[in-house]
């Protein structure tokens, strides 16, 4: 397993490095002079030149990159247009998104895996049709629209839940949940639809697998056949899917936070794009990409834990 993970980690490092280059170039490629954003209503060319100089924007791109990257390596992502440290801003925003994402994953995994297992076990029956159809509906519903509909129903009409905003957990735990319930549902339904389909198809193939037949032939109860033999193997597939869904989850968080006005990481990303706050944007996208790579590495670890073939032999051919 060590070798396998080491290789994966090496690849991840390369990806992070390349990502940082892409981030840097991408941010510079954005139209809209950062100096103009910093100078605001003051567009006197002399002032703009001074700003460029002050922020090092007048230096050649490779120099700027090296400066930025070497500081980023030391954990310093620079100061944003508000003169606040980007790293600190990101750190304060991430827990919010993380909480949202965790809730969503919880909802998605519980609903998705449960429904997927049920659908696979009752394949062709009414509950299977119901589950597969709702998964398809879940995949087809634009989530931001679902969010708007939830706001109309639960916030505007019924007044059960707040339409938007965020209250931190330590400030007011109940209110925190109230504010995150709809967003997490919106984000979780999409995930649960994907997971349901994946779980169902993984379960279907494990349920027809020879080892499940063996388990049945051993006289095991259907419950242990499904929950132990079939599910364990399906989860190996499903774990990788959860990992791959992470990008979708971050994307979903961007728009969900936008709709429900949650000051999380996703909203920070959009703010940075809209305000052309280039240091902030660089930091945000770099952290997103790194986070994604790291989580995928974690998924690989979980995957190897679930899959003894990788764990023991170090080979990743199943």
């Amino acid at each position, binding site marked *: 397993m060590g070798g396998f993970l080491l290789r994966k980690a090496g*690849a991840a490092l390369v990806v992070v490095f390349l990502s940082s280059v892409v981030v840097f170039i991408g941010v510079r490629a954005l139209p809209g002079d950062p100096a103009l954003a910093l100078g605001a209503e003051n567009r006197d060319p002399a002032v703009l030149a001074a700003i460029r100089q002050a922020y090092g924007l007048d230096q050649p791109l490779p120099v700027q990159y090296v400066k930025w990257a070497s500081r980023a390596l030391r954990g310093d992502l620079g100061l944003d247009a508000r003169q606040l440290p980007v790293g600190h801003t990101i750190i304060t925003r991430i827990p919010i998104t993380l909480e949202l994402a965790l809730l969503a994953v919880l909802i998605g995994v519980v609903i998705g895996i449960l429904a997927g297992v049920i659908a696979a076990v009752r394949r062709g029956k009414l509950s299977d049709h119901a589950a597969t*159809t709702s998964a398809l509906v879940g995949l087809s519903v634009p989530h931001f629209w679902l969010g708007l509909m939830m706001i109309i129903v639960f916030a505007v009409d019924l007044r059960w839940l707040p339409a938007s905003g965020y209250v931190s957990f330590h400030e007011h735990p109940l209110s925190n949940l109230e504010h995150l319930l709809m967003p997490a549902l919106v984000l979780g339904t999409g995930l649960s639809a994907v997971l349901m389909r994946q779980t169902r198809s993984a379960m279907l*193939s494990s349920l027809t697998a020879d080892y499940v037949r063996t388990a049945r032939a051993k006289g095991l109860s259907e419950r242990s056949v499904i929950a132990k033999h079939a599910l364990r193997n399906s989860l190996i597939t499903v774990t990788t899917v959860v990992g791959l869904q992470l990008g979708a989850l*971050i994307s979903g968080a961007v728009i969900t936070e936008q709709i429900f006005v949650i000051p999380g990481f996703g909203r920070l990303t959009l703010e940075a794009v809209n305000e052309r706050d280039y240091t902030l944007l660089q930091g945000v996208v770099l952290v997103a990409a790194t986070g994604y790579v790291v989580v995928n590495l974690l998924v690989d670890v979980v995957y190897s834990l679930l899959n003894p073939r990788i764990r023991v032999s170090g080979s990743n051919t199943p």
Partner: protein
Amino acid sequence: MSFVDTSVAAINPRARRRRILRRRFMRRPLAVAGFLVAIAFVLAAILAPVIAPYSAGATDFNALLAHSSRHHLLGTDELGRDVFSRILWGARASIEAGVLATLLAMAVAVPIGIVAGYYRGWVDAAIARLTDVLLAFPFLIVAVGLAAILGPSLTNATIALGIGAAPALIRIARGEALALREEDYVRAAVANGASDLRIIARHVLPNMLSTLIVQATVAIPAAIIGEAVLSFLGLGVQPPTPSWGVMLSDAQSYLAQAPRLAIYPGIAIFLCSLSFNLLGDGLRDILDPRTTR
């Protein structure tokens, strides 16, 4: 002794396969419904200028936020524009983005994927790293970034969506090519000294077609929703051009006063992507019997 084999019907196997596929397809009412609705949306997009009662931008400042009536089937929006007409016109952006983005993604991904899977080795490794890098950026962030860099417009949103969808497709095409390369008939062709290009064109590509078709049908609804998201965020279709995402974005300020403005375009997006998803699911079922058996 004469041994006569009569167990296999002597008909053209391709025609037979087509017939079987058609029969399997017709036996899936949801897939058929999806197909019909998808066709309806495509027609609506093409025929919008003919069938829409009003032009997309026709404002009536004396009928703001009107309820549905004989004149305005689904009422009017905050600028007095006919919502029904705008939904018809909006189908153009969605279908265009959905189809073109998918075609673009395919055009980018399939050759790259085939090259990676067919040649393997360092080419494959390099491409794999590249797709890893692309995949490291969440789809929407890539799309948002590209839309911001290229400037917001339907074309650029389509490009962004296409590029955003490519990495996943590269992986799929690579996997298929990798598997097909090991097939006997490909090996035979290699042994017979056929050129790589010929093998890819004659054997690899045609045999991954059904997988690609299924992927395309699934990628279209994703791109339709993607277009709506980008337009909703102001990074896609730019008003006054109608698009369902733009309509939703506009409607956001009127959730309390006129929730219908948010409901109708959402239903349109939902039905449109659902229809393609149903179609894609049906195609997958009939083309890939592994999932049904």
